[in-house]
């Protein structure tokens, strides 16, 4: 046992014997692993946030359906759905994408009855829309920054309305710590949203809350028995129901798909990293060969030299992985994913205006150690083996 401990110790001291080589190899590991860890942490953070959004959302999401396409529902549906046994609350909602500003910035307008605004929605500046007033908007900080909007700014009409064009006023900016999903949202009252889009009397969907145990029967009733008449002679609108569980089931698929693409890119980077380490491990190779020659000339066996090199590589890979993990954490926690979040998250700037979501879970951290070890071992194995299999005198030459 002491034999292995002593050999292992020489491997650890060898890290300090070749400071340049050690530093370059560790730097290679850090450069490769840090973006990988940041990407995984961001991906997990976004997934968690999405799960939370679904968890704290409605039990059922009901929209209209015609020929398999989603269409808005008439507001009468609110009353009709409320009548179904087990339904405790029905909230009409308007969600619609718009393009704003000279730079064509994508944004999403969400119209909700004011009493059903998300409880987590708090303003960092200004206030939420008030019941007595119309055409008041609250805007996400990220969107406000991009559009250079401030509280009190007036927005020209989005569209020409049948009842006259209305100017909207920004009355609040909501918290940058709000979930990522809300960063590009514009919240307003249901009525204002209906006016903005000139679609009075319609909701894009209904958020349905159910009593416990009724969700399935309500979904079944909605899909089989409920239809809403359109204008005379235009047929009916059937309902399309999506449950919270269905959304939760869909989410991992989407995340996994994106994660798969990310992993593929990382595998390519990893494959490039091995020859890079191979080259960098050649730094000071002549000195290293000479050292191996001395060891062999003084009685070290080839496998003892290889074991020493393996411990050295293990130490370097551990150091590289630890630094990469700390760097990834610092990058996300204190630098808020500066620059790197803009690569991984769609629509985020180099300096994110929102708090980027991230989560560093144990499995990616363990994976980082494993990848680092594979990377360093594969990259250093050949040069170590070459140096330790030639004759001592040749190695010392």
């Amino acid at each position, binding site marked *: 046992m002491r*034999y292995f401990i002593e050999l292992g110790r020489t491997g650890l*001291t060898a890290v300090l*014997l070749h400071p340049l080589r050690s530093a370059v190899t560790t730097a290679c590991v850090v450069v490769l692993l840090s973006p990988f860890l940041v990407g995984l942490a961001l991906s997990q953070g976004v997934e968690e946030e999405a799960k939370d959004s679904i968890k704290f959302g409605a039990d059922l999401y009901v929209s209209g359906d015609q020929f398999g396409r989603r269409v808005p529902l008439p507001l009468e549906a609110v009353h009709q759905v409320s009548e179904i046994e087990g339904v405790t609350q029905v909230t009409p909602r308007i969600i619609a994408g718009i393009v704003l500003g000279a730079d064509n910035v994508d944004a999403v307008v969400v119209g909700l009855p004011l009493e059903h605004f998300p409880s987590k929605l708090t303003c960092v500046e200004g206030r939420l829309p008030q019941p007595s007033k119309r055409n008041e908007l609250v805007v996400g900080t990220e969107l406000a920054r991009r559009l250079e909007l401030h509280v009190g700014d007036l927005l020209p009409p989005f569209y020409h309305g049948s009842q006259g064009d209305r100017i909207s006023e920004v009355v609040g900016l909501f918290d940058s710590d709000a979930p990522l999903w809300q960063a590009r949202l514009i919240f307003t009252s249901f009525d204002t949203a209906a006016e903005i889009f000139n679609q009075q009397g319609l909701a894009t969907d209904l958020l349905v809350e159910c009593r416990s145990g009724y969700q399935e029967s309500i979904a079944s009733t909605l899909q089989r028995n409920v239809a809403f008449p359109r204008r005379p002679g235009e047929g009916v609108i059937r309902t399309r129901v999506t449950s919270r569980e269905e959304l939760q089931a869909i989410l991992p698929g989407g995340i996994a798909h994106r994660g798969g693409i990310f992993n593929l890119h990382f595998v390519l980077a990893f494959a490039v990293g091995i020859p890079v380490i191979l080259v960098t491990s050649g730094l000071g190779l002549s000195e290293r060969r000479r050292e191996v020659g*001395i060891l062999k000339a*003084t009685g070290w*066996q080839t496998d003892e030299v290889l074991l020493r090199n393996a411990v050295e590589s293990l130490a370097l890979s551990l150091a590289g992985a630890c630094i990469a993990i700390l760097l990834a954490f610092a990058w996300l926690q204190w630098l808020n994913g500066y620059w790197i979040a803009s690569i991984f998250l769609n629509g985020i700037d180099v300096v994110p205006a929102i708090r980027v979501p991230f989560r560093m879970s144990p499995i990616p951290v363990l994976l980082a150690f494993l990848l680092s070890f594979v990377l360093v071992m594969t990259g250093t194995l050949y040069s170590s083996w070459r140096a330790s299999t030639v004759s001592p005198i*040749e190695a*010392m030459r």
Partner: protein
Amino acid sequence: MILSMPLFETHHLGKDFRPGTDSMVRAVHDISLQIEAGSFVLIRGSSGSGKTTLLALLGALERPTQGQVIFDGRDLAQLSGVALARVRRRLGFVFQNFSLIPGLPVWENVTYPLIPRGLSARRRIEIARRSLDQVSLLDRLMTRPSELSGGEQQRVAFARALAGEPDVILADEPTSNLDPDSGRNLMQQLHQSHAKGITVILASHDPEAVPFATHILELEAGRLKI
């Protein structure tokens, strides 16, 4: 040269570098000799005569291209890498360029060859103290080789050779990079080791070595001069 009780035997020993090419160099050619245990053999010859190569072949640092080296009754060519390493543990080398590991303190350099023997650091420090005391460098235990003079580095290399309690010391031009005083000092130490029963094989053209030698081999163009 035929001696009784051979520790080393060579039969038609030869070493070619870059064999089969136009630039082939025949460093050692058709050398047959026997060296008995406890002798002090001086290998002499001009530069390029093959002294270093012969020493490397005897010390199992090179494999011959022709002939045999038999050490303690075992043909080195037939030994595995592991067995060769074990043979080398019975030998102590002193190289012309010292061959110390720059980043390690003196005591580690002296006892690095002992690590595969599973000795603890404490035991190795004891051995380093003893070996460095023999070469009067006990006060340089924690010093790095770069902080030592050439003579001191060669004494450290000699202490390293002694640390493993070798049967044989093989020294390749150990005094060529030293000033005369340091050279004489090292010769004295080799002589003392020989007096303790260690076989010494010294490759050198230093005339100071001649009085200490029990046997002298003359090499010329890779051949043994009779």
